[in-house]
């Protein structure tokens, strides 16, 4: 388990706010939040990082996928306060020094999106899939990307983009 801040009681009464410290895309933030705030709402509404999308808000579509301490999660189904001390990477944090992440470039090269709404989640999920190292074949990529729904049906090109980025890593 990641080393985080010491366990502490202290959210006060049901009407009070809770303090949350998070590092997002390398920048540390200290916030005071309603305990009901999901990690997704923290990113979108409090930090103005609107790359992560709210599709279903029930963990069924994957559009809100981010990297939490390096692991892909659906940010709609965790509370921000539960992630106090964690490090989050969103799609906005993938490009480095003005260069797209290889998977972002691969999505362009393979035209791996149509409307684009699912794309930030697809890319974050794909970056984690490559890091996990469990997928080798197209079948395995499809299976391990099944948490990201694309209603336009760009799946063929998404798999091709991931295969390209995988070959570069």
């Amino acid at each position: 388990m990641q080393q985080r801040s010491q366990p502490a009681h202290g959210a006060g009464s049901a009407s009070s706010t809770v303090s949350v410290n998070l590092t997002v895309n390398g920048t540390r933030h200290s916030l005071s939040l309603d305990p009901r705030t999901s990690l997704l709402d923290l990113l979108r509404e409090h930090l103005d990082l609107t790359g992560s999308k709210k599709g279903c808000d029930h963990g069924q579509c994957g559009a809100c996928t981010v990297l939490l301490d390096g692991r892909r999660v659906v940010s709609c189904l965790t509370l921000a306060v539960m992630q106090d001390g964690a490090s989050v990477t969103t799609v906005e944090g993938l490009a480095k020094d003005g260069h797209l992440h290889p998977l972002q470039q691969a999505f362009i090269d393979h035209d791996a999106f149509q409307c684009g709404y699912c794309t930030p989640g697809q890319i974050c999920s794909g970056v984690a899939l490559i890091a996990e190292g469990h997928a080798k074949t197209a079948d395995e990529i499809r299976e391990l990307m099944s948490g990201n729904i694309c209603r336009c049906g760009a799946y063929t090109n998404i798999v091709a983009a991931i295969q390209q980025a995988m070959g570069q890593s």
Partner: protein
Amino acid sequence: MINFQYVRASSIADAVSLLADSPTAKFVAGGTNLIDLMKMDVEQPSKLIDISRLELDKVEDAAEGGLRIGALVRNSDLAYHPAVEARYPVLSSAIRAGASQQLRNMASTGGNLLQRTRCAYFYDTALPCNKRTPGSGCGARQGHNRMHAILGTSDACIATHPSDMCVALLLLEAKVHVTGPNGARTIPLDEFHRLPGDMPQRDTNLDPGEIIIAVEVPRAGFASNYTYLKIRDRLSYAFALISVAAGLELADGRIKTARLALGGVAHKPWRDPRAEAALTGQAAEETAFRQAADILLRDARGFGDNDFKIELARRAIVRALTQAARGTPQSQSNKKIA
């Protein structure tokens, strides 16, 4: 979502004490089911006790060749744990068949056991559901029940337990270690989940105030002859219509030991000692597999939309036992049924 107080437990004893102080509180670990149910106002805890930082995240060798899995081990970590892949591949396979990698990265072992049914009537607070609101009736019995149970149902409830992991744990005869205000105890997995009877609001035999510490599987892993076959409406990321975990010990083409557990058919993962006994000593062939399926499904009944699940279960059992006997377990990435 109604508001709630948030506290973080500093130890197991602290968690138990916090819950004892607030009976309307709930533990939260991965949150993948509870947070969703809170958004739907199906669950309305006054307080969330965050146990996710407790040190219950180890997978360790247990006595007599078994494996002890901490309650906070994430589903993905468990599925890819080298000891699980090598010694209990049916467990690894079942976990990979459930949810998505994102959810498996979040969901805990204990939380997987405690997840609630995905019955649509349970989720919709405008509709009757004896599990959510005891005494309000069951909307599913005469409603849309395509996904619902065919075994062990009651007048009050025909919901299914949605877990894949628990089906494999049942096959492996796992035990659940819990503790609470009255001390520690161990519950066999088969007795952990309940049939609905006239109290469908109770999913498990966990007492109020108790917390899951670990799940332990004994030595026998059926690593040579096993499968986890999951039949669903799409090839991935969907709940089971029927799932079958099968494990065999073979000697000279005959069945020495048979284990068979089903998901998607009942309020709990389903195992039938009579069906397994009928396989013992038989040649590992289709005739015996069909007999076992007939025995397991002897009391199965449908409710209209889900009538097809009885025949589907019969065929899935035969196919799963065939896969196990041949040593060709179902792949969870190439979905062609072997």
